[in-house]
């Protein structure tokens, strides 16, 4: 079932799989990135600890800039620094950046085409008990609609490290979406990762549907694939970490192979990764698609796990969507 080329963790379905937060992968990689590249500067809007840039701040205090609770200043100051030649990483919660400062990102980063890395923490329902005001379910839509912008949603701690070091020198405006909670680390140091290239994680002999996921829901998709296999339904699983530019060839090939697609993301269905998949397929190779995501509603307080269940983002929900899409394909 598992694609050997993906070099996934041997403990992938074991109970003692390591749990680490995606944001921790970012924070640790940022220190390495800072060591290698002196142009890297880090700005935060009063969220040093929870966006995990405290490690960078301790190591490189002269390249760490605290702007206060001022998300508009956060990105516009970074724009100026990038205009001069720095490579700024700017961090806040995704709900505020790019939520509150989207127009500034559009005008001063995307249109100016400067290589600012906007890092949105607590993407999805991860803010949990804080409630819907702090849950970012719209940020992918906001960012992928901007020309020049690269949009990346790492699937686990290890991938977050690779994504962070990969975007440093791309010379482009980039959005990096980070999840808050600890999730299984199912990729390894050896797992291939390239911005703009989706990875096949499960490659069955006779797949009946493809699950295209990003962020922590990639692991839920893997769990779904395992359960579906038990009842005789083989699937293709794609880790679609780069929402923009999306790996069109891979998406179209998957549609041609399985003729049924399920997308899964911790985001509104409107405008999200799944929307981007459907834009590609409706123009190139239309097949039935089921969307696992938030159905046009706000979140609420609860633990992230409770919320995932309530809003239908678990492996079980993905498996159900696969059954539905296969029925549609065969009807």
């Amino acid at each position, binding site marked *: 079932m598992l694609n050997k080329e993906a070099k996934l963790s041997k403990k992938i379905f074991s109970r003692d799989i390591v749990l680490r937060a995606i944001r921790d992968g970012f924070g640790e990689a940022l220190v390495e990135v800072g060591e290698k590249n002196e142009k890297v*500067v880090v700005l935060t809007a009063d969220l040093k600890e929870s966006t995990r840039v405290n490690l960078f701040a301790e190591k490189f205090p*002269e*390249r760490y*800039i605290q*702007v*206060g609770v*001022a998300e*508009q*200043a956060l990105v*516009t*100051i*970074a*724009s*100026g*620094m*990038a*205009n*001069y*030649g*720095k490579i*700024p990483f700017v961090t806040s919660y995704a709900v505020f950046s790019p939520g509150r400062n989207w*127009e*500034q990102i559009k*005008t*001063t980063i995307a*249109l*100016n*085409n400067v290589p600012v890395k906007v890092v949105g923490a607590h993407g999805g329902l991860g803010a949990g008990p804080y409630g819907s005001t702090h849950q970012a379910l719209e940020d992918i839509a906001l960012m992928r609609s901007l020309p020049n912008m690269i949009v990346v949603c790492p699937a686990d701690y290890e991938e977050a490290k690779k994504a962070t070091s990969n975007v440093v020198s791309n010379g482009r405006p980039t959005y990096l979406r980070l999840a808050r909670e600890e999730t299984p680390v199912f990729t390894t140091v050896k797992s291939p990762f390239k911005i703009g290239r989706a990875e096949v994680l499960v490659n069955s002999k006779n797949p009946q549907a493809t699950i295209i996921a990003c962020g922590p829901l990639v692991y839920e998709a893997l769990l779904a694939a395992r359960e579906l296999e038990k009842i005789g339904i083989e699937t293709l699983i794609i880790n679609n970490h780069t929402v923009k530019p999306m790996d069109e060839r891979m998406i179209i090939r998957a549609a041609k192979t399985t003729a049924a697609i399920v997308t899964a993301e911790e985001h509104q269905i409107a405008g999200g990764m799944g929307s981007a998949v459907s834009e590609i397929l409706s123009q190139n190779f239309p097949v039935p698609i089921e969307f696992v995501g938030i159905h046009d509603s706000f979140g609420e307080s609860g633990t992230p796990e409770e919320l995932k269940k309530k809003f239908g983002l678990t492996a079980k929900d993905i498996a159900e969507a696969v059954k539905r899409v296969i029925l549609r394909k065969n009807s």
Partner: protein
Amino acid sequence: MRKTPEELEKIAATIRQDILNMLAAAKSGHPAGSLSMADIFTALYFEVMNHDPKKPDWKDRDRLVVSNGHTCPALYAVLARAGYFPVSKLKTYSKLNSPLQGHPERFRLPGIETTSGPLGCGLAQAAGIALASRMDNAHFRVYCTVSDAEHDEGNHWEAVLFAAKYKLSNLTVFVDRNNIQIEGPTETTLPLEPLRAKYEAFNWKVVEIDGHNMAEIIAAVAKARAEDSRPTAIIAHTVAGKGVAYMEGKSEWHTYRKNVK
């Protein structure tokens, strides 16, 4: 070559002619602010700033971030007259396929440091350039122009706080205090006064001048250069629509209307 105030005034008169010609040809644009900014842009490019029109990307050039991007007819005219691009291009302002966009865009035209138009976000970019260049011990100066009504924007005040925190003495902002905005006087739309006291309370050095007096503009910049621990705001008292009798002081000329002569 140093220019006398009289020579600068002569250039500014040509710039005002250019602005009116551009707006009349485009049937669009912002006359009041362009005309109130004409002297400041002229002084910056013909006397104050260290720059080279033949090398717009020269790394040690002084930077100008034009936050009040709607006044770009004045900026474009000054850039053209300074030699950044042919004066003949001015007539293409805001027309299809022109590098002179209705609001300025970086990369479309030599000499444009940042894309602007949406208000309130220029000072923060200028502060970012000022801080980044100081990190590298670069010695150029960063100038920024803002309209007075831009002070309605929260992003601007975030930048005012930030520049004071980092003591960005290499940063100078010109406030085009022409007292009008789209809907009327600034003081009835959202009162800004006492503006000087506000900047001072935020730990900025403040110089107030007649924004149409070349000698005062140049002297104010000298004061800003002499300051070594604070950013400087030059509050330039100007007249909206300056130089065109029927426009002067009138908010209805914030945006283009018929009959620009």
